[in-house]
């Protein structure tokens, strides 16, 4: 018997990322920028190699770095959230029901409070570094 994992659910096929827009703008933004970054990251890698070989491409590298930086923001932020979610067993940024979350805290003695701040601290560093890059970086 042949079985095929269906990449679809009640919200529609998973390949259609626009379905996310109706219930999670954050998830939609993450997937939209992911789809762009899939190709842009390869182009950026190639451009860095060209920059290292051909002189005079500094301003162009700075420009494309700024674009990559902005589009990478949701990837970076969501990856940090995912790691915190795993670290706190779903208590931070998860959608556990109240009773289950209470039992989890009781079982593992874990409070997600400080962990919730980690992605936002990372994001603050990321934005500050972006401003520094724009102001001071002269490749």
């Amino acid at each position: 018997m042949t079985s095929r994992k269906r990449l679809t659910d009640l919200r529609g096929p998973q390949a259609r990322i626009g379905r996310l827009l109706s219930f999670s703008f954050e998830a939609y933004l993450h997937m939209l920028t992911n789809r762009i970054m899939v190709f842009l990251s390869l182009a950026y890698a190639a451009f860095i190699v060209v920059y290292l070989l051909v002189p005079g491409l500094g301003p162009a590298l700075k420009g494309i770095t700024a674009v990559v930086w902005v589009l990478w923001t949701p990837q970076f932020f969501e990856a940090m959230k995912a790691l915190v979610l795993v670290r706190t067993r779903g208590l931070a940024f998860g959608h556990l029901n109240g009773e289950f979350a209470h039992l989890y805290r009781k079982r593992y003695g874990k409070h997600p409070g400080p962990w919730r701040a980690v992605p936002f601290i990372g994001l603050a560093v990321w934005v500050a570094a972006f401003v520094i890059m724009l102001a001071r970086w002269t490749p």
Partner: protein
Amino acid sequence: MKTSPVMIFEYAGMLGVPALLVVIAILSLAGVTGALWTVLLSLVAAGCAVYGLISVRQVYGHARRKPKEES
């Protein structure tokens, strides 16, 4: 999305490249140039290439691959 063992490298790129870019920004405050600069940019390029290639596989290849026949 289907998971895959190589996705760990995708996540490494997703966090590693931003970390390297932050280091580059901080070093630009100190005016660092030369070999260190080249090494850092090469690492960024390598991270982007790995992230991009695995993402292409995840988004356009792996998820659409036909499963093995079950006997």
